[in-house]
């Protein structure tokens, strides 16, 4: 019975919304809002084909590349900033300024500096994804529990060991928050990087459809983006549950006390 209720809560509203959309658009003759049935049919026709390999795959690879680079750089710089007040003081205004530049605005700049190939696209993604990772890492590192830090100091856990056993695990909940935000940003930038000088990709395909007035195909592309976002979010949630198992357990324990 409980399973049924949970399934209802989980799927109830989405199913209701989809059903409403289906019904409301079934008779639609509006070019911009084709019937949901048409969109779904077009979806299968467009995406279950070579497009998956020729468009979706390159996009996803570029996304993963930019995301990974942003994660590594963001965590590294974030740790440096979090650990040293001096570094923080020097670097903070510079980062504040760089962070305020919208990544799409950097695209023309990056085209000048890195050309129009995959490198530019990966850099565009990195330039946006790095910020939530960096800021959250710095905040997480700064918030390391003082008693724990003293304990590590007393037992002479220093240098790389301190990073591995104290700093990074202590900051990991907040780092994961940053990585989660970076994922959403990454998808957005993946699309934007393909709007300018691209010849393949998911974002490229959607814009091509829009320019060619292939409206149902365009909507199916938007759906695809949503599904991609959902799939990545789901994978991330699984990874997060595994990595932060200790954290969730600890919070559950303290809540029940």
């Amino acid at each position, binding site marked *: 019975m409980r399973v049924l209720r949970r399934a209802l809560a989980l799927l109830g509203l989405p199913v209701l919304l989809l059903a409403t959309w289906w019904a409301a658009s079934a008779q639609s003759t509006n070019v911009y809002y084709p019937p949901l049935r048409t969109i779904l049919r077009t979806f299968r026709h467009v995406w279950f084909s070579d497009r998956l390999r020729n468009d979706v795959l390159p996009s996803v690879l570029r996304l993963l590349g930019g995301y990974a680079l942003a994660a590594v750089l963001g965590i590294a710089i974030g740790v440096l900033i979090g650990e040293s007040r001096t570094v923080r003081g*020097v670097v903070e205004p510079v980062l504040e300024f760089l962070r305020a530049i919208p990544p799409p605005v950097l695209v*023309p700049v990056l085209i000048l500096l890195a050309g129009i190939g995959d490198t530019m696209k990966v850099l565009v993604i990195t330039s946006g994804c790095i910020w939530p990772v960096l800021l959250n890492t710095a905040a997480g590192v700064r918030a390391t529990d003082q008693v724990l830090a003293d304990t590590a100091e007393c037992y002479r856990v220093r240098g790389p060991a301190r990073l591995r056993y104290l700093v990074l695990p202590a900051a990991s909940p907040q780092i994961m928050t940053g990585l989660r935000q970076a994922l959403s940003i990454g998808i957005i930038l993946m699309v934007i990087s393909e709007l300018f000088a691209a010849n393949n990709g998911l974002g490229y395909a959607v814009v091509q459809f*829009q320019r060619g007035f292939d409206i149902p195909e365009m909507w199916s592309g938007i759906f695809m983006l949503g599904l991609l976002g959902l799939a990545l979010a789901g994978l991330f949630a699984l990874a997060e549950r595994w990595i932060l198992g200790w954290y969730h357990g600890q919070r559950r324990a303290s809540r029940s006390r």
Partner: protein
Amino acid sequence: MRVLRGLPGWALGLVGLAGLAALLEVVPRSGLVQAKYLPPFSTLVRALGQQVGTRGFWSALGHTLLAWAIGLAIAVAAGAAVGLLLGSVRFLHAATASTVEFLRPIPSVALIPLAVLLYNVRIQSTLLLVVYASFWQVLLQVLAGVSDVDPVARQTARSYRLGPWARLRYLVWPTALPYLLTGIRLAAAVALILAVTAELVIGSPGLGHEIALAQSSGESAVPVLYALVLVTGLVGVAVNAVFRVGERALLPWHPSMRAPV
């Protein structure tokens, strides 16, 4: 490094900024990167000075800020209202949780083609993107704030039989307020980014559109391009600073506002 350690915070910051400017001056001049791709800092500043003298620049800036302000206001009102409602009524929260999770990852850029079709290059297309992206920021923060209500306080309220309105006013609102203000600050930043992005990609009036024009105007406009990028960054910094000051002014009592020891 040791020299820097004793300096006060603002001095360190100046060192950093000066370092960046110096880097931007030296790298193009030394030939590491060609000057036509990355103009020296002094050239940038000169181009910026020229821009500030033109009426087109200020008109573009005005458009951007207008779209930003309107979009932000709508998003905050909607996000706060929906967040408070969903957070307070447990049944609603459970029923809508999956929908929120599904819609949340849909990137706002997915709406760009739709915006173009509906509104072409008018300001409404900018607004569509700005409101969509900012709404989520506010909503998620408010939801986090509502769920952060101290369980002991909540039980105390229940044992004193406070009605839903009283609970909202004395229990939920003070707890959620800091989160809401953080959400507004984050949404303000996102709104600005989306506004400029929409203008850049769609072509609606504003700073973003000016940047796109500069990019397609060839080599002579490269310093102008960079100057406009600089302006965008400065506007972003200003917006962030204003909202952070506002947050501090409204919440001096909150622990997150206390200076680190």
